[in-house]
């Protein structure tokens, strides 16, 4: 019995150390943005609405063209309001842009 409990507690501890922040980066991690409040709202919608049916997936694990197909479907299934839809769309776009900029930076310095 003790072994089972210890194994479970160890599993939870290991998982707890995993990087969960970059699944949906906080606005401060996106660099300079002009619409921080709207993006904050978009992030909140992203991490709570997705979790109603499944775990929120890492935004950058999906390409922009794939998001263009998936996002409208998810917005419809989640029954988001127009303003929430706009906020989450802007947030995902901002994360993808920030990721693309970060990827482009090393090549500029070379």
């Amino acid at each position, binding site marked *: *019995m003790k072994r*089972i409990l210890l194994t*479970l507690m160890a*599993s*939870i501890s290991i*998982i*707890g150390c*995993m*990087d*969960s*922040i970059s*699944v*949906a980066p906080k606005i401060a991690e996106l660099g300079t943005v002009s619409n921080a409040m709207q993006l904050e709202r978009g992030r909140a919608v992203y*991490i*709570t609405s997705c*979790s*109603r*049916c*499944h*775990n*929120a*997936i*890492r935004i950058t694990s999906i390409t922009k063209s794939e998001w263009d197909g998936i996002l409208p479907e998810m917005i419809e*299934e989640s*029954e988001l309001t127009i303003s929430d839809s706009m906020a989450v769309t802007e947030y995902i776009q901002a994360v993808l842009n920030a990721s693309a900029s970060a990827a482009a930076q090393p090549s500029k310095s070379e």
Partner: protein
Amino acid sequence: MSYKIFLSVLCALFIVQSPCIATSRTSPWVYHSRTMMEGEFEYEQWVTFKTDKKNDSEYNEWRFRHELEWGVTDRLQLALYFADWRIKQTSEQEKITFRDVALEAVYQVQTPSIDQVGIAMYGEIKYGPEFLELEGKCILEWEFEQVSVLYNVTVEAEWEGDDLSETKGKLENSFSLTYQPEPSMTWGVQAVWEKEFPEWNSIGNDVVSIGPSFSWQNSNWWFSISPLFQITDVDSEPDLQVRLLFGIDF
């Protein structure tokens, strides 16, 4: 006979179609803190098969539950079990029994997300012929990208018999660790640790069961299945239990 019923239920899963969104449960033995959205309805079918008791080689039991869930608000969910019934075969007899009807309420205190622990409180009352049960549960859920951890602690009080004079308490701790390779699918492992308190004045054996789980959801229905294997050595408890849940959203 038992396996034919089980196969029929599995086949039915792949035939049924319905429009709408699925709000799935990834772990048949452990509740999650996610609740339905306001105004949503879901039909849930439970099938549990129990077998392999050391003290009765002929023991086989099928338990069925028919449940309707309703999202009252985005945080409060009510459910009606409009029938819990069983087909039980022992070395002495085989009988079909209607067990109870039940009302369940789940209130989501905190939404699960990568930023915070999901918390929900659960209450249930069951009533049937010569049977009454009250159940309370605290549900915790951690979400780590593709991995989820669930923990439930459950306390039950039962009254049975002609005048409900036989009482029993039960404490249950259940855990689940699931991995989501894609949003529509999870697989994982679950463990249940039960302890009974007959007449509230004695302590029963620890019964621990563990097993894998698999779940699938699409836009209109979902199912999850998990066998549990007893790893303790309690002769009066089944060594194998398989639970299948199947839901359709309206």
